[in-house]
């Protein structure tokens, strides 16, 4: 229980911190030449980067970036993917066949490769990152939604609704989607963690946020040039990234455990 509280707590800090950070009078891009590469000390929280910008402020700004990108991408991926997957499984036939093939083709690109290629070709910038990650992200949810729908579409109350003449769209949105929502939620939680990592990864490669904007990934990349003299530039954003992702993953783990228990109960109950 404590673990869950800690993870949820960290996630709340992340989201709140990002939002509050947007309102605070931050010094994100203010250059202080005298403070170049100053290590963390008594008078400053997290030190300064290679342009004398305060790491703490940039950390908050990067937090906002990762938060917004993650939530946007997941929202887009979940909505697109769930609808398409459910439709595909419910309608079946040729449509289902085509959708499955399309899903297979997208899944043939390992991991972040397609996102890198898309972002690389469309050009750098955070908007393109959101687009690229959403284009790659919907597929996983579509596949999950489809598999789940296939297993629930023969449930009694669904058939009952069909017999009663309920429209297909209504069945999909009122019955099927709510039924499959919990596994989708679990997947979405893990999805948030992986999008945070993906955005940071793309920014690390130079395909995400552009200078002088901050992202944890680009902060780490800029920091690697000064590892000899200022390791705090890599370690601090790295720690932040790891903490947030770990918290989200833990929360997702717990959610899935709870879900499994529920499903066991359901199975034995029915």
């Amino acid at each position, binding site marked *: 229980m404590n673990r869950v509280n800690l993870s949820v707590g960290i996630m709340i800090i992340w989201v709140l911190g990002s939002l509050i950070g947007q309102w605070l009078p931050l010094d994100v891009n203010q250059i202080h030449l005298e403070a170049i590469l100053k290590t963390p000390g008594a008078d400053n929280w997290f030190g300064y980067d290679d342009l004398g910008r305060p790491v703490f402020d940039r950390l908050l700004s990067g937090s906002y970036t990762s938060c917004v990108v993650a939530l946007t991408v997941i929202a887009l991926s979940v909505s697109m993917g769930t609808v398409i997957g459910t439709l595909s499984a419910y309608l079946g036939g040729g449509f289902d066949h085509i959708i499955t*093939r*399309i899903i*297979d*083709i*997208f899944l*043939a*690109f*390992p*991991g*972040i*490769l*397609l996102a*890198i*290629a*898309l972002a*690389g*070709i*469309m*050009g750098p910038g955070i908007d393109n990152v959101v687009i690229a990650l959403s284009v790659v992200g919907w597929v996983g949810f579509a596949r999950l939604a489809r598999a789940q729908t296939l297993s629930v579409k023969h449930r009694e109350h669904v058939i009952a609704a069909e017999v009663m003449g309920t429209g297909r769209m209504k069945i999909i949105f009122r019955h099927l989607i709510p039924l499959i929502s919990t596994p989708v939620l679990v997947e979405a939680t893990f999805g948030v*963690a992986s999008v945070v*990592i993906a955005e*940071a*990864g793309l920014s*690390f*490669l*130079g*395909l995400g946020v552009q200078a002088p904007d901050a992202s944890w*990934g680009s902060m*780490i*990349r800029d*920091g*690697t040039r000064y*590892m*000899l003299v200022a*390791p705090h530039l*890599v*370690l601090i954003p*790295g720690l932040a*990234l*790891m903490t947030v*992702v*770990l918290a989200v*993953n*833990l929360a997702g*783990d717990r959610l899935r455990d709870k879900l499994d228990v529920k499903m066991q109960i359901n199975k034995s109950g029915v």
Partner: protein
Amino acid sequence: MLRFILARLFSTIIVVFGVACLVFLLIHLVPGDPVDMMLGENAQMADRQALREALGLNQPVGIQLLNYFVHLLQGDLGTSLHSREPVVQILAERIPATVELAIASLLISCLIAFPLGIIAALNKGRAWDKTAMGVSMLGVSVPNFLLGPVLILVFSIYLGWLPVSGRDGLVSMILPAVTLGTALAAVLSRMIRSTLLEVLHEDFIRTARAKGDSYYQVVIRHALPNAMLPIITLLGLQLGVLLGGAVITETVFSWPGIGKLTIDSIMKRDYPVIQACVLLISLTYVVVNMLTDLVYAWIDPRIRLGQSS
């Protein structure tokens, strides 16, 4: 079995075709004129025309697609815009580096994952299990562009034991392989744990224990071989993750493989090379998946002997 092979082959071919089409479409996603993008807008009209003709961009998309496939089947992946070398040659130079890294990472990840997963499964619910799974959770949460620099910080800069980057002898492969391998090990160890747990609950395990085999013997002689099936499948799938993750790891360590080539080409906007790299990596993944399925089918007597459904 034959039917299974043919069916699998057929669906693979469709996916391969789809992947090639998607990669072809990528270049047309470029906002604006792809030729402008390639020549950096500093070309004369004549150069632009020449490139357009050379790339066949002045023809309708359908014909372009056809040409693309014709060239592909002949093994012609075009010419690099930057160095004017044939792309196939560039790829051939860089493939060995990535293969080395992939094999080393796979080995390291198995070395980490198997003990971790087995210990966790055998001690389910207890301290060892929680620790092992905690470590694995950590591995999933630390991306390789973070782990890489941290390893460099500790082992190259602070301790001075290993080289920072580059491909310079066996020693320089250690840090990149560990970086890639641990990410894979994290996922693998969980899979090994859960598969082993499922198998350990099977009846034949109880029989073996009843017969007097020690727990250790039971795991190694009975449980593990049966668990290998889904584990092999996962290894095949994870190769794809390895190839995807290699892009970032190779960049962190300046490892001269296909992954770094992809990023370098993106930075130089060398589109033929970008296309070829993406195609190569994804097709490798698809083929490996297909082979994994076939191996799985062959090992599993139920499929090999054609059990009727």
